[in-house]
């Protein structure tokens, strides 16, 4: 039905269609090409990486690169740390955001308007990197994993969208809970949050991707490289080409090139595994934001 604009196609239009399909398919593949190359390279031998500059399929399969990173205590530590910080951080950030969004969704709460403007103001102005750093330092959070979670705990943008969602839930639900003798705390926990699962899932993903991909916070707040997260580890291996970070067994030196490829693949894999959810929820979130923000 909505296909009207395609009717009455001229021959030139048909040529364009063929060209357009080819171009967009090429674009789609181009988006994936670097990653396919890196995946192929991660399974190749050192000699193949040294002699062939580009390939999408290795001639001889080798698992040496994966062996050396997956037996590296430093890499495994970074991996486990990142998973744990992401998991704990997402829960903490989501809980803080939702518990602040709920009272703000009550139109009759005194002081609500003032608080909302103060929150919106932080979306356009901040004290900056150094004062935030000094605050984290003064709170004694330097070189703790809380420094990766707390400074970005409540995203004002997410807070306002969750607040808007709570606001449009039917008021009767809360009233019936109130008649049953529940206070607001119990209502939020047993009535509002279960109803908001899809929205909360969206923002859980927002926060999880944010923590997983975060590079600036560990760079600023973690000095001790035994505490490093995956992104810091990745940069050390690929950008700084410092393989000593792998802490490999000195008798078995890791394949210098292959390791770089493999680390990239492992750091990206979780994002790709979650990608179907990410695509669905993020696209929706972005459009909500553009309409209401």
């Amino acid at each position, binding site marked *: 039905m909505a296909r*009207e*604009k*395609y*009717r*009455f196609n001229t021959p*030139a*239009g048909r040529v*364009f*269609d063929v060209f*357009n*399909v080819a*171009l*967009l*398919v090429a674009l*789609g593949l181009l*988006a*994936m090409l670097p990653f396919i190359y890196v995946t192929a390279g991660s399974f190749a031998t050192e000699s193949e990486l040294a002699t062939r*500059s*580009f390939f999408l399929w290795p001639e001889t399969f080798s698992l040496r690169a994966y062996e050396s990173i997956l037996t590296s205590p430093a890499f495994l530590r970074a991996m486990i740390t990142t998973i744990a910080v992401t998991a704990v951080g997402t829960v903490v950030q989501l809980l*803080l955001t939702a518990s*602040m969004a*709920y*009272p703000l969704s*009550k139109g009759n709460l005194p002081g609500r308007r003032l608080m909302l403007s103060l*929150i919106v103001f*932080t979306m*356009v*102005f*901040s*004290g*900056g*990197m*150094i*004062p*935030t*750093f*000094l*605050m984290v330092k003064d*709170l004694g959070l330097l070189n703790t994993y809380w420094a990766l979670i*707390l400074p970005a*705990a*409540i995203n004002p943008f997410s807070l306002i969208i969750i607040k808007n969602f709570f606001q449009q839930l039917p008021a009767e639900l809360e009233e019936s809970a109130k008649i049953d003798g529940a206070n*607001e*705390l119990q209502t939020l926990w047993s009535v509002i949050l279960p109803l908001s699962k899809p929205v909360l899932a969206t923002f859980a993903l927002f926060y999880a991707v944010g923590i997983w*991909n975060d*590079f*600036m916070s560990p760079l*600023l707040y973690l000095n001790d490289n035994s505490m490093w997260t995956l992104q810091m580890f*990745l*940069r050390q291996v*690929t950008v700084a080409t410092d393989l000593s970070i792998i802490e490999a067994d000195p008798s078995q030196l890791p394949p210098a*090139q292959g390791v*770089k490829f493999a680390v*990239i693949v492992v*750091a990206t894999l979780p994002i790709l595994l979650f990608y179907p959810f*990410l*695509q669905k929820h993020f*696209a929706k979130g*972005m*459009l909500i934001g553009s309409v209401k923000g």
Partner: protein
Amino acid sequence: MVVLDRSVAATEALVVPPRKRRAGVRVHFTQFKWLYLLLVPGIIYFALFRYGPMGGAIIAFKDYVPFLGIADSPWVGFAHFEDFFASPDFPRLLANTLILALLSLVIAFPLTIVVALLLNELRLNILKRSVQTLIYIPHFLSWTVVASLTYLLFALDAGPLFHAINGLLGTDINFLTDPAWFRPIIVLQDIWKNTGWGTIIFLAALASVDQEQYEAAIIDGAGRFQRVWHITLPSIMPTVVVMLVLQMGQVLNTGFEQIYLMTNSLNRQVADVFDTYVYFMGITQGSYSYSTAVGLFKAVVGVILIFGANWLARRFNQTGIF
């Protein structure tokens, strides 16, 4: 609480009978106590991590000495700002930042619209969705991954793009350290990571174009290109203008992570932007007050730009001059 009650009662005595009002406030606090309790963690968060640093930015006007603390460090007025504006770093940072923003505006922004238009012309929905799925993926990768991919692809004497581009130009350039190649690589990363994702907003605008206009145009004998030119493009123009103006409000916000990861000792001259400069001066060299002054300058100009851009966007949106 009593003091608060009195002052509220005093100021509103003319409007509301005092006794009634006072009782009202007390009832409010008991009625809303659970809600206020829920607010407490959030308020502490905003006080510590959002407004705390805004107060801490006062060290831009002081000579901050860590062991003296913020309060006891001596005042210096605008000395750090004067130093910054007088230093050769200021024009260099400004130029680097503006050039990157301009390149993004001139290259990446139109490209996003073109890709959205092309996607919109795809007839096969399954094909459209597949292409979308593929081009959205890079958006979710971290800048560390993007930088790592770049380092592998352009690696000296090894990377496929090192060989391809040098072969094409007949040169022997190390792209990762050559200052002339810093900006092209940043723009390339930007395009790869964000073009696909950026199409979402334009595709949404394209989906809401009134289909009857196309029918009318077909009856008038308009071809595909005429329809795109005379119907599709004008219909999404308001969205384009708003997005353009909003992006102009973000001109100073060159992403810290992307630039930091691609900066090295050989390309510093063109790579330094406000955010990375603050990091190098503040964290690496420990000039807390000076770097805070630089950050504060950027933040203040940023606020002015955002409000200016929003004002402009609203004007365009309401009058709909296009």
